[in-house]
């Protein structure tokens, strides 16, 4: 209850704000911040709990976007179907990559996920149906009744998805799965000897994480009314998801949420006030700073302060 009541409040507030006459730009920017929340939360399920670094967020995100686009173009499927299908396809991709490389050391998994990004990007560049390298213009469907604009509706959908992703991550963390993942992060051999099914747990985490990333990518083509490979599979998605988790703190589900909100908001401000290049620089510098100086992230810092003042 301590989790579910605030969670419901967040969704209701998001819906309320979407129906109020707030400036359209607010939704435009907040949508991206919420996408970061989903991506970082998803990244943390494998990267934070199990300690396997995934550089392939962009691959899962992009495949989610493309799955949604194909379904929309082929069948005119509604958004909910697009999201579900994107989650399924990306989850499958996560399972496949995991099967191939999760037996190996973490660095090999990390490098393999970079490979997946570029392979998927090359496939989409060469696929005419989805527009190839030039991309595809998409016509948004009619707005549903209570909302003024499509962006407002997407904002509410993304807010619900963020809450859902956090709830899933929280469930993983407090259940036996989370305990198993933490055990294998500290020592894979010891966990295996203690009867933890390490490979199965890693595969589960990788699949769930991939599925959530795909779901986060599904509404993106509708948000932009456009899709093209280079920005869909951009490595910036990967570094953002990773940085948000590292900045917030990887041990608790709250960490990625804090990190994503800080990083996302900061980026929106920097993009508007300075430039989009500086915005990527900010991510890189913050990532390195936190990894070096505050390895436990914002959560760790808060913990230390609370202990200090007690």
């Amino acid at each position, binding site marked *: 209850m301590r989790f579910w009541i605030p969670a419901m409040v967040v969704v209701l507030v998001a819906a309320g704000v979407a129906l109020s006459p707030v400036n359209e730009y607010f939704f435009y920017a907040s949508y991206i911040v919420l996408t970061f929340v989903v991506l970082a939360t998803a990244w943390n399920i494998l*990267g934070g709990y199990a*300690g*396997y*670094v995934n*550089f392939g967020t962009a691959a899962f995100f992009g495949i989610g976007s493309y799955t949604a686009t194909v379904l929309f173009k082929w069948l005119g499927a509604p958004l909910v179907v697009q999201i579900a299908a994107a989650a399924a396809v990306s989850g499958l991709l996560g399972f496949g990559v995991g099967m*191939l*490389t999760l037996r*190996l*050391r*973490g*660095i*090999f998994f*990390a*490098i*393999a996920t*970079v*490979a*997946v990004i*570029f*392979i998927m*990007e*090359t*496939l989409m*560049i*060469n696929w005419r149906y989805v527009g190839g*390298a030039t991309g595809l213009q998409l016509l948004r469907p009619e707005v549903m009744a209570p909302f003024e604009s499509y962006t407002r509706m997407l904002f509410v959908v993304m807010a619900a998805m963020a809450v859902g992703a956090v709830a899933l991550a929280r469930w993983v963390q407090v259940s036996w799965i989370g305990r198993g993942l933490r055990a294998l*992060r500290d020592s894979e051999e010891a966990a295996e000897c203690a009867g933890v099914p390490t490979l199965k747990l890693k595969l589960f985490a990788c699949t769930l994480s991939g599925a959530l990333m795909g779901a986060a990518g599904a509404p993106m083509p509708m948000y932009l009314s456009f899709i093209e490979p280079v920005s869909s599979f951009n*490595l910036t998605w990967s*570094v953002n998801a*990773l*940085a948000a988790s*590292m900045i917030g703190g*990887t041990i608790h589900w709250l960490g990625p949420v804090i990190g994503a909100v800080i990083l996302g908001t900061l980026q929106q401000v920097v993009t508007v006030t300075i430039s989009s*290049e*500086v915005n*990527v*620089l900010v*991510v*890189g*510098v913050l*990532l*390195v700073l936190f*990894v*070096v100086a505050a*390895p436990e992230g914002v959560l760790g810092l808060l913990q230390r302060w609370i202990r200090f003042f007690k």
Partner: protein
Amino acid sequence: MFFSWDLLFEALMFGVLLGCFYAAVSIGLSVSFGLLDVPHVAHPAVMVLGSYCTYLLASYGWDPLVAGTVLMAPFFVLGMLIYRFYYETFEKRGTEAGVRGLAFFFGVAFIIEVGLIMVFGVDQRTVNAPYIGDSLRLGDYRIPHRMIVAFGVALVLTFTLSAYLSKTFTGRAIKAVAQDEPALRLMGANPVRIKQWAFGIATAASALAGAMLIIVGPVEPAIDRLYIGRTFAIVVLAGLGSMTGTLAAGLILGIAESIVLMFFGASWAPAVAFGILLLVLGVRPQGLFGR
């Protein structure tokens, strides 16, 4: 797809030249990741930094090859500093160095990339030298001189490094630290200093590799992303830390990429390296010449 033996021969020839070049750009990683076990995903970014330094010196009228050779000295120091920092912040503290080390180098790669964009812009940059525009004619075939230069430098670099590692005292110490660090410690040697030295050498090699990168073709700040795949594919395919293996793996990738380029078109070529990488990881993760 259009097939002819002539075209295949040309693809093979170009592939051999390209492969040697790829081996040269990977040799630094073969030392830093293969031998020292540092998850150096910023290796291609450091190399592109080398390309831009070469570009800067070349704009003052330096020959790019000379510039690359001179740059090896400051890059050697840079490499030692990077390793020292990595050691002090991650390796020394031990726990979870894997995750944070990877995140650290990933962040460094982004900082270098964006730094280059902010200083030089996103445009492609090239250098000029007498051997760059021309090509060698062999009957019907044309081989660009710049590829021959890269081929030569790559061979020299690879063989010098592998001779250094197997013939000299320090080189053997580097190999020893890769094989059994505690044993080296028992012999009274300091593994950290040896690793620092080796990382310096690896970074110096990537300065020269960066010079070749800009000789072979135009360079843009984000090109390092493609080379993450190429360099890691080669190092993993070679088997970690094998220098001659690196040359062989480079040749395999070069030939494969040039055949795909010739028969399927340029849009498929970037996936070759990453495809080989996934295949090797799935089928034979210890590589062809693994220790």
